[in-house]
Every structure is written in structure tokens, then in C-alpha cells.
């Protein structure tokens, strides 16, 4: 029993990271129907940025969230202007297809650039609290994982409040529901899309910092995109609260897989879940409609 609880708690700690990984992708997909599969690549680049910054400054890696997030916001802003703005005039289906092609290209470019700059070796930021655990009745909870949970809850709540309490947040939701009606309200739809897209990039910075605290390499970008897509399907499109639940759920399912079958099958369970959800509940666990 203790072993199960231990595995499950690892799963949930991982789940918090999965929520953060999926958050930006979900926001961008919800608002403008761009399927940004390069998101995992961004997180990987954010991890390397953190690794680099830590290597030179030796400051606490969590502090780098304050640097990496605005940096990626700016990168998102530029890439939207250069690559993604022209897709806005396409019909919905075409937006998904074209953004998928562009961002898949970006994903390949990102991971190859990372190999070029940092080689394919495993890296990790090692702090004084790396590997330290909190012992709760025999269940070992790593501090880094707990930090991840706290950050996930704070970030997702903050995003939720931003989207429901501010004029600009409401404008983002209005645009995600109906571009033309939003225009009729006097909302500058292209500006809202630009900012939402950049926020999506900024949100890649946060899981990037947490990823840097575990072993990572350039190939992790594909794995992260994979997780983000599974959580997106679990959560239902456009549901921010659903992303938090979906991330934890994926973490728990993976933990169950590890407990029942074994560690090598961890990924398999997530993908089976992906297929099952698409077959039986395509609107997602939290979503109301397709």
C-alpha cells in the first residue's frame, strides 16, 4: 500500500508539471485554433536557458522564472508577427493544419538548435535542495516536485483570474468564442491574438524552469508536446481549470501504470488514455461540448 501511495504521489507531482506544460498550448489553441506543437520545444529551450543562466550565476533556478517568462513572451511576439499572423485570415480547419505544419517545423528546428548549442547530453540543474525529500508518514515527497505543484496551482489560478476578472482577459475569451462578434464589441482581434499567443509562449517558460531541475536533453521536446496534447484532450479545448485537473489525472494514470505493469510502460498508459478519451468523450473530461 505504501508503495502505491508513493508511486501515486510521484505521479501527482509529475501531473502538476504536465498541467503547466499543457497550459500555453491550451490557451493558444483555444483562442485562435493554432495547434502549437512546438510548445514542447519551447519548454526544452526554456530549460536550457535556465541551465545556462544557472551555470553562470548560480542563483536559485526558480528565480529565473522572472527572466525566462518575459523573454519567451518577446520571442512569441516576434514569431507571431513573422510566422503566424498571416494564418489568421484562414478558415478554422486550415488554421489548425497550417499552424501544425509551421510549428512542427519549428519543433524540429528548436531541438536541432539545442543539439548544436548544448549537445545531446543529459543535463540538469543541481541545487542544494535537489534530491531532498519531505517525509510524510513514510511517503517521500521531493521538494522540487512540491514546488512544482505550488507553482502550477498559483500560475493556473492567476491565469484563470486574469481571464475572468479583467477586461483584456474577457476579450481573450470573447475572441476564442467568436472573432466577428468580438470585433463588433470594439475588440482589436489581431492584437488580442498577438498577446494571447505571446502569453502562451511565456507560459512555456515556467515548466521549462521546472524541467531543468530534472535530467533533460533536446529530445525531451517531443515528449513534452506529447504530454501537452494528451492533457489538452483530457481537459477539453479552452478549459483552463480542466488543464489543472487533466495534468493531475494524467500523472495519476501514469502512476497506476507504473504500479500495475512497470516503469517502462509509463508512456503507454498516457497514450491509451488519449485514444480512449477521443473515442468516448471527445469533448474532454471537463468540457461541455465538442
Amino acid at each position, binding site marked *: 500500500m505504501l508503495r502505491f501511495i508513493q508511486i501515486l504521489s510521484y505521479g501527482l507531482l509529475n501531473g502538476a508539471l504536465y498541467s503547466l506544460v499543457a497550459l500555453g498550448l491550451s490557451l493558444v489553441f483555444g483562442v485562435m485554433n493554432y495547434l502549437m506543437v512546438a510548445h514542447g520545444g519551447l519548454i526544452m529551450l526554456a530549460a536550457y536557458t535556465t541551465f545556462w543562466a544557472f551555470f553562470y550565476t548560480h542563483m536559485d533556478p526558480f528565480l529565473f522564472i522572472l527572466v525566462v517568462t518575459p523573454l519567451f513572451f518577446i520571442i512569441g511576439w516576434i514569431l507571431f508577427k513573422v510566422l503566424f499572423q498571416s494564418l489568421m485570415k484562414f478558415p478554422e480547419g486550415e488554421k489548425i493544419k497550417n499552424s501544425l505544419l509551421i510549428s512542427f517545423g519549428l519543433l524540429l528546428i528548436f531541438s536541432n538548435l539545442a543539439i548544436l548549442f548544448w549537445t545531446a547530453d543529459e543535463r540538469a540543474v543541481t541545487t542544494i535542495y535537489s534530491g531532498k525529500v519531505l517525509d510524510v508518514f513514510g511517503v517521500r515527497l521531493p521538494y522540487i516536485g512540491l514546488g512544482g505543484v505550488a507553482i502550477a496551482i498559483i500560475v493556473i489560478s492567476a491565469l484563470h483570474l486574469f481571464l475572468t476578472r479583467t*477586461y483584456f482577459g474577457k476579450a481573450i*475569451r470573447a475572441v476564442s468564442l467568436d472573432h466577428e462578434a468580438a*470585433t*463588433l*464589441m*470594439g475588440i482589436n482581434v489581431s492584437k488580442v491574438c498577438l498577446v494571447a499567443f505571446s502569453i502562451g509562449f511565456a507560459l512555456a517558460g515556467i515548466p521549462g524552469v521546472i524541467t531543468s531541475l530534472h535530467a533533460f536533453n533536446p529530445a525531451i521536446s517531443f515528449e513534452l508536446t506529447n504530454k501537452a496534447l494528451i492533457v489538452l484532450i483530457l481537459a477539453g479545448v479552452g478549459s483552463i481549470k480542466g488543464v489543472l485537473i487533466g495534468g493531475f489525472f494524467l500523472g495519476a494514470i501514469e502512476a497506476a501504470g507504473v504500479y500495475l505493469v512497470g516503469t517502462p510502460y509509463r508512456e503507454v498508459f498516457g497514450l491509451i488514455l488519449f485514444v480512449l478519451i477521443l473515442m468516448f468523450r471527445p469533448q474532454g473530461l471537463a468540457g461541455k461540448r465538442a
Partner: protein
Amino acid sequence: MLEVHRVDVHYGDIQALWNVSFRVEDGEIVSLIGSNGAGKTTVLKTISGILGLTQGSVMIDGVRSDTIKAYQIVERGVSLVPEGRRLFRDMTVLENLELGGYIGKARPRKDENLKWVFQMFPILDKRVHQLAGTLSGGEQQMLAIARGLMSEPKLLLVDELSLGLAPLIVKHIYMTLKEINRPKNTTILIVEQNVRLALEISDRGYIIENGRITGEGKGSELLRSDKVKSAYLAMG
């Protein structure tokens, strides 16, 4: 207030409006009547900037508005209540109204404006925290109009509000439009297939057929004219 001057509009290669000219004076209620596919909605979409014109001009208060972006036209004091209502269905009634008053100059007066629209449509006050998609058809149309009013428009464009609604509700909403018109001197341009109802509350009306303006006159005159009687009212 509004002057549409010799406007042509195309959808791709297909021309939808030919040389359309008409004007709406300050404080008037004007209706644009015509059958399905005559170009009524196209006219409203052109005024609100969603469709670009290929020829001619649109002036609001003497300033050209066809050269600016659609979202900026709202700031010029024009608000469109679109066909099919186009509410933000997954957002609450209150959020829909707040978005209606999104533009900078309307935000500081949000509370006053909410009070004003709730006074006109008290049912919305009871439904403030309900999702817009769960309202009945009539309530949704009221919300769409209320949302359009939250930006404090000088000119309100209303597209086919009777669509899919019970006649009594339509009548009630039209009476409310008249109430909106008077105290705040809000100019209203109505597009409507229900010709009798539209002309009854309008000061003036224009007839549009196949993308061309083919007639105009006072509301009461048009109602009595043989052309309108035979073509739209199935009389004579």
C-alpha cells in the same frame, strides 16, 4: 449622422450591392426592408466595417468610416446587433454586457449603463449570472440589444431581430427600441423582413431589392404604397 454614398460591395467575384445610397438623420428610426438575399445584412456589415466596400463611401457624422478598422468603428459610436444574435454563449449575461461596454470611453460608466439596460430589459437583471447560451430566444435577443447598447452608441444597427421569435416578444422588443430612441436620442437603423412591424415604428424606410435601393419614403407612406402592399404585405 450616417451617410452611405454610392456603395458597391463584392463577395469575391460576386457583386452584392450596386450603387447603394441612403442617409439616416440624427435621432431617426429608419428601416431597411427587403426580401431574403436582397443585401440588407450586407449593408449593415459594410457600415460596421466587417465587410469592405469596393466603391463609394460611408460617413459617420461627416467623417469617412470605411477607411478604418471594424473595431474602431465601435469607438465612433456605431454598434451592430448582428443577425443570429452572436452572443458569447459560454459566458454569463453580465460578461456579455461588460464586453458590450469594452471600449475605453464606455468603461467608466459601466454601472450606470447596466442599470439603464436592466431597466429596459428587467429579465436580464434576474439572469445576470446565467450563461448566455441557456437563455430563451427572446431573452437572448434582448441581451444582444442590451450588449449593443453598453457601448453607448449614437447609431444602433439592428439586424433581423424578429428571426425565430414569437410575434408578441418581437412586438415588445420593438416597443423597447422606440423607448431607447427617444430619451438618449439614439439613432436606429433596422433591417427587417417583417415589413409591417418595421415600418410601423420607423420614421422613414428604404426598400432594397437585389442589392439596389429601389424606393424610400416615410414609414406610414410606404405602408400605404401599392408597391409595398403587393410585394411585402401580400395585399392587392
